[in-house]
């Protein structure tokens, strides 16, 4: 059973697609959550800084600069004990530090009560606001972002874990459901494959889940049943036609044989002998028609075909016909490339070559030449120097019962039609060309099958 590569399988691609979409969705969701959390924590920090700076401004108003310096020292002392890391700087109009734990005035305008993120040594980025307490006194209060960063780190870890779990779940679920689907579809595919190989009893098991695949399986089985009936009916008709016609013909032939036995005069015998030959002709006509019908019905069906050595077959046929050529005084040449192989049925190919050679010899006058060549591809070519085929007949001669009017050759006009049907059964096509003088018949792969 040919298996489909996971990356080409519909389900493999579907699983990969779903996993990618999940990763994308989780990533987008993470950025959204990250943005919200960041904005919210920053808003909280900003509002805490505002509250702090307002409190300190009140202290300055009520207690003056000395009181403020005292309080700032207390706070910084508490900061050291608690390990928190808030930042203060009280400076004069030029930015020269008076009190606090920041070494220099940041890039913030106190007149505008500006706030923003600033960088300080060791601590890195903090959020700070500056304010002008008096014409020659300004204050900056800064809070670090440890809270925000901790929250964001937690969020990242949470999303990473959740994302991994989701992708694993989706991939697992996808794998499991696609495996189930694959198994059920593989059963349908296997049934078709078996039917293709000629096992018409193949049926798909129905799960009875009432889903789409059940419906597909049911339709498949119905179709297979109908095709089986048609194939059997076709075989039945052809077998019975052949049987029911041949049996009375055989009785007729037996009577002719008895009559031949009883009649002593040679003159009278000739008529009976001809009648027997006619019976043989009718039977061969019937067989050819049935062979054409059967080959046409099996066109495209690879069952029963196997790798065959075309070169060997062609060599044997050339060998068989070379004696006839000598007797007919026709120069017969053959150029057969070694080890040309193809997928086909040997007896069909033998018959095609035999029909083409029969025709070539039949239509070639004494002293002319016939050639058979085989090349890889495969390409089988039979060429003669006979009267050739008029251009408007080069396709028609492959139709049943079509014969060239200019010739009076025997036969029932089915040889080329049968060759064409046999060729099609083997994935080949026969074309007729002008050999100037004569005709060329070329058998090649039919790309349309």
């Amino acid at each position, binding site marked *: 059973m040919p298996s489909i590569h996971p990356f080409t399988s519909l389900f493999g691609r579907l699983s990969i697609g779903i996993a990618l979409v999940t990763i994308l969705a989780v990533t987008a969701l993470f950025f959204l959550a990250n943005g919200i959390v960041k904005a919210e924590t920053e808003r909280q920090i900003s509002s805490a800084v505002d509250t702090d700076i307002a409190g300190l401004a009140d202290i300055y108003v009520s207690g003056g600069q000395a009181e403020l310096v005292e309080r700032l020292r207390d706070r910084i002392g508490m900061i050291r004990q608690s390990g928190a890391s808030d930042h203060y700087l009280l400076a004069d109009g030029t930015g020269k530090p008076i009190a606090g734990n920041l070494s220099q005035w940041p890039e913030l305008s106190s007149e505008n009560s500006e706030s923003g993120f600033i960088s300080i040594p060791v601590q890195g980025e903090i959020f700070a606001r500056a304010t002008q307490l008096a014409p020659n006194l300004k204050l900056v209060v800064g809070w670090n972002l440890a809270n925000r960063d901790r929250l964001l780190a937690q969020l990242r870890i949470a999303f990473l874990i959740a994302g991994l779990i989701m992708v694993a779940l989706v991939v697992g679920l996808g794998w499991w459901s696609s495996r189930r689907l694959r198994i059920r579809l593989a059963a349908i595919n296997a049934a078709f494959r078996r039917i293709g190989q000629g096992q018409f009893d193949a049926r798909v098991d129905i799960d009875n889940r009432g889903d789409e695949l059940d419906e597909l399986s049911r339709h498949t089985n119905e179709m297979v049943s109908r095709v089986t009936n048609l194939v059997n009916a076709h075989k039945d008709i052809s077998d019975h036609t052949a049987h029911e016609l*041949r049996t009375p013909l055989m009785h007729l032939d037996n009577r002719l044989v008895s009559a031949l036995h009883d009649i002593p005069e040679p003159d009278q015998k000739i008529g009976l002998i001809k009648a027997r030959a006619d019976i043989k002709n009718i039977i061969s006509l019937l067989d050819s028609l049935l062979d054409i019908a*059967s080959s046409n019905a099996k066109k495209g069906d690879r069952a029963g075909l196997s790798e065959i050595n075309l070169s060997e077959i062609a060599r044997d046929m050339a060998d*068989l016909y070379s*004696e*006839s050529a000598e*007797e007919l005084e026709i120069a017969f040449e053959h150029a057969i490339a070694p080890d040309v192989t193809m997928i086909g049925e040997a007896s069909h190919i033998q*018959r095609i070559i035999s029909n083409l050679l029969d025709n070539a010899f039949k239509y070639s006058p004494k002293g002319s030449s016939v050639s058979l060549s085989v090349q890889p591809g495969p390409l089988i070519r039979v060429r003669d120097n006979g009267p050739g085929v008029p251009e408007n007949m080069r396709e028609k001669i492959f139709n049943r019962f079509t014969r060239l009017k200019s010739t009076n050759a025997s036969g029932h006009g089915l040889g080329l039609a049968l060759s064409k049907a046999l060729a099609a059964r083997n994935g080949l096509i026969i074309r007729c060309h002008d050999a100037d003088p004569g005709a060329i018949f070329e058998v090649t792969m039919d790309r349309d099958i």
Partner: protein
Amino acid sequence: MTGLKILHIEDDEQTAETVRDSMTIAGDSVTWSSNGTDGLRTAASSEFDLIILDRMLPDMSGIDIIGKLREAGVDVPVLMLSALGRTENRIEGLDAGVDDYLTKPFEHEELIARVRALHRRASGQAHSAVIIFGDMECHIKARTAHRQGQHIALSPKEFELFKYFMQNAGEVITREMLLRDVWNLNFDPQTNVIDVNVGRLRRKLEDGFDGAIFETIWGAGYRLLAR
């Protein structure tokens, strides 16, 4: 050769008569069964040298019968005599396990020749390295032909043909047997390629010698004669 015991399973009475007449003249005895069930029973109940089997019987197909026979361990050679004569039908029959396939209508000589050849093949004649018949010798391994001690140069295919005649020396060999066994063809080419090829071998073996060794049997084929 003493007469063969033949079982003929066939629903058509006229065919049965024809076969019986042909084989009786040839010195064999024929038991006739008119349907598959009866035929299978008869085949199991007594010993036969050969079975002639119709392809389409009212109660079962010849293909089913051959399957049942082989299943039951009956390994008697079977000649299928059938109204279905297309290559496809022949291959089906041979694939099903019949030993030879002959289509109706047939020549009496062809039927007798096939029955004889099939019996010969089944009785397993030892194939020696050298076959001698009359004044002819066929050296299988060396692939050489001699007549009256004189080497006859043959092409590879001519040698195959000669060997086949020597292996079946003295018996009627039909064109269809030659097509199938020497050229491996399951159909009859429109032209007389077989006659032409036999004619050439005949000239090589007869020219310059006294006495014809090939006898042409009208309506059937050829026979190799001892000189």
